[in-house]
């Protein structure tokens, strides 16, 4: 009898006694889910992909997604620039819209959004931060930054990064970046 009780007790200890079906513990078994995937631009899930996004005139610009339809929606840029990568095929491209700039990088024949720079205080992040906001406002909107070395405040969400340069408690620059190796 006791042996049985011990075994049952151990089982209960191992298992816990919750009874709901919330089972997203993920990768305890260490297989598929724990592996990183290289293909960042899984465009099927663009719309609801987690990440920092820049929104202007109802156009949303997420990071690491195909650029073509977004660029079309943004309209004609003031100027654009193509920068070939050293040695490799394809061009990094910069589209200047005056108050903001959209950057792309090539991947397997298509351009992918790699960055958005806010250039002046006429544009703001979705969370209402613009060039000229105070540090306190940034913290209120985004919480404590992961790092703030040399005034470079960094926040990561999904495969996007939001970086703000804050000097003397005032935001001087805002950039959205795609998290990709080698960019």
């Amino acid at each position: 009898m006791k042996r049985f009780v011990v075994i049952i007790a151990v089982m209960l200890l191992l298992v816990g006694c919750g009874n709901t079906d919330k089972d997203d513990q993920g990768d305890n078994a260490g297989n598929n889910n724990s592996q990183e995937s290289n293909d960042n631009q899984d465009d099927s899930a663009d719309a609801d992909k987690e990440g920092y996004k820049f929104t202007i005139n109802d156009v949303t610009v997420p990071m690491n997604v195909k650029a073509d339809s977004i660029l079309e929606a943004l309209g004609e840029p003031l100027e654009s620039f193509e920068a070939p990568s050293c040695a490799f095929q394809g061009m990094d491209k910069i589209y200047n819209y005056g108050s903001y700039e959209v950057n792309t990088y090539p991947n397997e024949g298509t351009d992918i959004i790699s960055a958005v720079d806010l250039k002046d205080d006429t544009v703001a992040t979705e969370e209402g931060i613009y060039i000229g906001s105070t540090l306190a406002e940034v913290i209120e909107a985004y919480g404590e930054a992961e790092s703030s070395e040399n005034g470079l405040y960094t926040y990561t969400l999904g495969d996007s990064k939001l970086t703000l340069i804050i000097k003397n408690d005032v935001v001087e620059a805002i950039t959205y970046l795609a998290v990709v190796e080698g960019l």
Partner: protein
Amino acid sequence: MKKKILINIAAVCFAVLILFLLQELFMPKYVSEIREGSLIEEYYDDEKDNDVIFIGDCEVYENFSPITLWEKYGITSFIRGSAQQLIWQSYYLLEETLKYEKPEVVVFNVLSMKYDVPQKEAYNRLTLDKMKLSMSKINDITASMMEDESFISYIFPLLRYHSRWSELTWDDFKYMFHKPKISHNGFLMRVDVKPVTVIPEGRKLADYQFGQNSYDYLDKMTKLCKENDIELILIKAPSTYPYWYDEWDAQMVQYAEENNLAYYNFLEMSSEIGIDFNTDTYDAGLHLNLSGAEKMSNYFGKILSEEFKVPDRRNELDTSMVWEKKADYYYTMKEDQLRELAEYGYLKSYGALVQNNDTED
């Protein structure tokens, strides 16, 4: 027993031979595409008797023409450049070069100061794969590896390129053992033109200070040159992009002063050099084309011979003969590029992209 051992030895030798051949086959050839990948190895077949050695990224191998330096000033030079060459890679390449020869002057392009840590495996490969095995190479690999790379795959590149089995082309067989010369003493020629229309402003940085690692290697480089009694010249080539910040420039000016080195920011001198960004660049400002590189070399050659007293060797018979041959190849390629440009509208067999007119603005 003896027979068994012999059979085993023979089997192992055979296996090693096959693996070696496969490795040669699978390594990218860098002839029709990504020609930059051939630059590093071309040095080993050269004469190695140069007075000037350039080290650095594309801003050296696209912007300076050793043939012009020779023709105008009798200066012998070689460019040990490679795509996105990081500063420690420049240092170890220099270290390696000094084992073969002792130049009077070493020219280093300072753009790579901006990279404090390894950047991209693909670029590492272009610089490291074809370096001959030496301590310099080993140290270079260790300094350059990204986190998820393995050292052994640099020593046995088959471990890196094995997956190319399904994408081998005729080039891979054709150039397995012998490849045509791509560069002119490390200079990658391009005659096509794409004018500068926009100079994108650099993104604001939180910190303009170059990283400590970069400075450490710059120090090492300075020291290595001093020890070998070589003049080290720091330059910033006249490429309008990637953006070269004033704050960066100031640091280089200061460094040169403190270490008693020469530093030239050719970007600032571009009009003095005579560079016309409407005609002298082939990709809107990143790299000079042949015409731009010749102007640049013409200008820099004068500095080298007048201020650094690099000797004129045009009266040395042996050297002259060698360089005349080089010049012949140079002009032949120039002709061929001009012909291709006229024929196809772009440099079809020189790794250029099809010019896409509707992206022009």
